[in-house]
């Protein structure tokens, strides 16, 4: 372990800490409104607070070790993550149609694999600079790296997390120098793959969910129900919201899975347009700040790690908010720091720790 450098303190990234602290607090305050009822703190609230504490500890540990050591750790961590995914497939029980929980439902290995994927891809692109990637065939290896966890998660029937992992992996794509004609080929392939997925890979309920985005009135009591209720909650918030703990959609439980997937609807209902914009603005600022950290990092590995962390925060946030706003299908993607979920909370804070790590060491050699 390197000695604590005084410059580490001097360069401590207060902006990042402040952004994450505010978002975390807002997330917890919002979760309280979404889950309260009965006496004292709800079980979800208590577990989320514990996950927040654990995540903070993990983030501290992640921050303490110079990120340059993580390059060596990347492959073992990735191997462990893949092992956990395989283990899950072998021993985890099937709950609600998917098989994604280990250790009595406390750990979701798919969440761990997202961060492991960032590490291993950062290591790969550090060794094979994306600026040198000019042909599609140069993407075979990173493609395979991404395909491993995604394939295992698909096998767990957890489509939301699989998609998320795929997208996090693809965060690095804009960095490569492949001509647009090649991208057209990729796009064609992707469309073909999507068509095949639609025909063979999706369960009827999943197709319904996708169609419900196009036309929420299709079947308002089944798949369209969630989208409809979410729209009602958001719209009835108006400009300034119904007030904290005053949202009827939330408090009277019309909003489905309001503490997990639809946590942002609670924000929108109770805090209105103003509150929603503040939360989205904080998110955007956090993401931009992540890019600033990437840009100012002293080496490619740091920059690649920072971009990976931005991907880890960006994709779930975007997918979740798009789903909540009725712009994307209902897929079980939680909003980082807002949705109830221990594994996601810990991994998100760990990712933030990684970003802090890169940020603090930008002037340290």
């Amino acid at each position, binding site marked *: 372990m390197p000695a604590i450098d005084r410059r580490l303190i001097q360069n401590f990234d207060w902006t990042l800490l402040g952004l994450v602290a505010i978002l975390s607090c807002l997330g917890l305050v919002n979760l309280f409104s979404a889950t309260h009822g009965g006496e004292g703190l709800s079980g979800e609230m208590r577990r989320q607070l514990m996950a927040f504490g654990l995540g903070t500890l993990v983030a501290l540990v992640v921050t303490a070790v110079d990120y340059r050591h993580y390059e060596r750790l990347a492959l073992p961590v990735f191997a462990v993550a893949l092992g956990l995914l395989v283990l899950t497939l072998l021993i985890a029980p099937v709950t609600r149609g998917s098989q994604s929980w280990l250790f009595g439902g406390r750990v979701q290995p798919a969440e761990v694999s997202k961060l492991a994927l960032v590490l291993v891809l950062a290591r790969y692109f550090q060794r094979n600079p994306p600026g040198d990637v000019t042909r599609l065939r140069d993407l075979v290896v990173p493609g395979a790296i991404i395909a491993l966890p995604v394939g295992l998660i698909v096998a767990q029937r957890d489509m939301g997390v699989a998609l998320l992992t795929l997208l996090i992996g693809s965060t690095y794509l804009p960095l490569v120098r492949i001509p647009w004609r090649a991208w057209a080929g990729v796009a064609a392939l992707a469309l073909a793959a999507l068509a095949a997925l639609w025909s063979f890979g999706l369960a009827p309920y999943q197709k319904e969910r996708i169609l419900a985005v196009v036309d929420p009135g299709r079947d308002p009591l089944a798949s369209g129900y969630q989208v409809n209720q979410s729209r009602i909650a958001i719209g009835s918030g108006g400009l300034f919201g119904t007030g904290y703990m005053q949202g009827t959609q939330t408090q009277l439980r019309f909003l489905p899975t309001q503490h997990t997937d639809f946590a942002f609807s609670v924000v929108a209902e109770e805090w209105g347009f103003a509150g929603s914009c503040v939360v989205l603005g904080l998110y955007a600022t956090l993401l931009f700040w992540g890019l600033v950290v990437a840009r100012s990092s002293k*080496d*490619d590995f740091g920059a690649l790690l920072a971009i990976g962390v931005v991907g880890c925060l960006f994709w779930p946030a975007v997918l979740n908010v798009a789903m909540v706003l*009725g712009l994307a299908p209902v897929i079980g993607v939680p909003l980082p720091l807002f949705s109830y979920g221990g594994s996601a909370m810990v991994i998100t804070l760990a990712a933030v720790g990684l970003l802090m790590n890169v940020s603090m060491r930008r002037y340290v050699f």
Partner: protein
Amino acid sequence: MIGEHRARLGGSDSTIADRIPVLAALIALIFAVFGVRLFQLQFIQTDDLRRRSERNYVRTLRLEAPRGDILDREGRTLATTRPAFAVQVIPNDLRHPDLTLDALSALIDRDAGELQTALGTPRGRARFQPVQLAADLSYDQRARLESHLYALTGVVTDVRPRRHYVEGELAAHLLGSIGEIQRAQLETRRFADYRSGEVIGQSGVESVMQSELRGRAGGRNLVVNVAGRVEGMLDEIEPVPGGTVTLTLDLDMQRAAEAAFLPEVLGEPSRMGAVVALDVRSGDVLAMVSKPSYDPNAFAGGIAAGTWRGLVEDEWRPLQNRVIAGNYPPGSTYKAFVAAAGLEEGLVDPARKVFCPGTFRLGRRTYRCWKKGGHGPVDMHRALVESCDVYFYQLGLELGIDRLAFFARGFGLGRSTKIPLPNEQAGLVPTSAWKERRFNEPWMLGETVSASIGQGFNLTTPLQLAVAYGAIANGGTLLRPRLVLRVVDPDGQVTDAPPPETLGSVPVAPEHLARVRNALEGVVQGPGGTGSRSRVPGVRVAGKSGTSQVVGLEHTEGLDDDEVQIRHRDHAWFVAYAPAEAPEVVVAALVEHGGSGGAAAAPVVQRVLAAYFGVPDAPPAGPPAGPPPPAEPEVPEESTSDDEATRVAEAPGADDAGD
């Protein structure tokens, strides 16, 4: 190790750093889209979505308005609305359903199995909706239940307005009954602003005064959660009770009229028939009784199917208001109109006498007078007083059926009295043209003979007779029967006070009516009159008896009264007004299968008149002194010849009324 990194100082010149603005632009674009979408939902569509959110959580509970009271003319309550206590359970809140139902069954005297059936097995959202187990608890049941309610989780009580007819069966047909609005009614313009499930007046005054009695329903906006469970109340609009309707009815007279149908001898069945009393100056309906009757309270909470079937299928038709819908041959009460017609047409010279030998021959056939030995020479006065059939056979033939019909219609027979009640029957006044049309046969003279004494095709409702005799009494004005004195809204404002209305005048000069009145007084007050049993001490009464044949003589010939089947016995009529010198009130009574009018119906009239004049404990029947009245059957004992069709009261011919 660390040295192995390809560090790039001032990362801005690295290829990675070059691409970072692209990523930033992507992020900015997507968040801009989110901002636009939020603006769309929370600014442009917010009103619509807020309404939909309200539809989610606001349940409006309708608060029924208490129906207005119905009072008699002195302000005594006939129909009111009282709170009824119902027991409901919220299935989801029941901790021990079986134990709770057992306890309930003991507390409110209901069968536990019955309660279980009422509860059913609700699932899903229905588990949060109250299920009614019992309606209208008694005071004791309610007291017992409420003292145990704390231990019965999930059991709640509910208070609803319920119609209550204070006097039970009294004036049931007049007051009418209430019931849930029917689908066909909902489609009519009259009920345009009604909703399914609403309870409305379905007959009688309840129906006629529906809009006045209805009031305005209020509502309570409740907050419910996604499961439908009530979480609180937003606001409440109090219901406005309906207006109070004061009837022209006089409770004392109504009671007397109802009591008159009780059996005179204990153990005999109650008598059937109808009584109506009108004020001859205003047309006010002072009493209206139809028997057999029913208790309208049975309808108040939704009538049980069995009770309803029983009422509908009863062969004596308890739901029918005989006063307005019972068509009966008027019998000898008709003679007053024949006499008036004869006077008006100049056919009756008061001094002229007709000899009554007890029979009357027309062609091959012989018609009998009710008095076997005959009345001897009779003038008009005596013919009415003693109800001589032969005199009126003669007069009727001289008038002819069409002139008879003209006068009968002139007295309001054969057409509606325009009483504001539904289902009034018009009766039937036969004419030669009518018979031609109805049977495609020419009118027979023999039918005129029957018609002259109110038999044959003639059909009349008790109300028509009361209105017609009212016109004789008041000097010739046919009054439209009035039921409602006034309507007062909950603030005490009189919203309606219908004035008396007339239907026109009878086509008979006042002096001729006076002559008829004189004879009618003789019927009751004079010697040998058939109506002496309607006398009231201290009041001079004028009236006319009638007995209308129900079946042909072949069913009754040679039998004693007790041996004739009840359904074959004659109907008894009596119509009277009083005081004879300055008439105020007219009473028409019909006792179905009661036998002779003077004997069976006159005492009914007497009791109603006694109540009007406040004469206490009037002697049951007959004059205090003097000879007993002749107990005449009054039915013309026709020779039992061949082709004469027997006519039964309420025959289908009534459909052609209104001729």
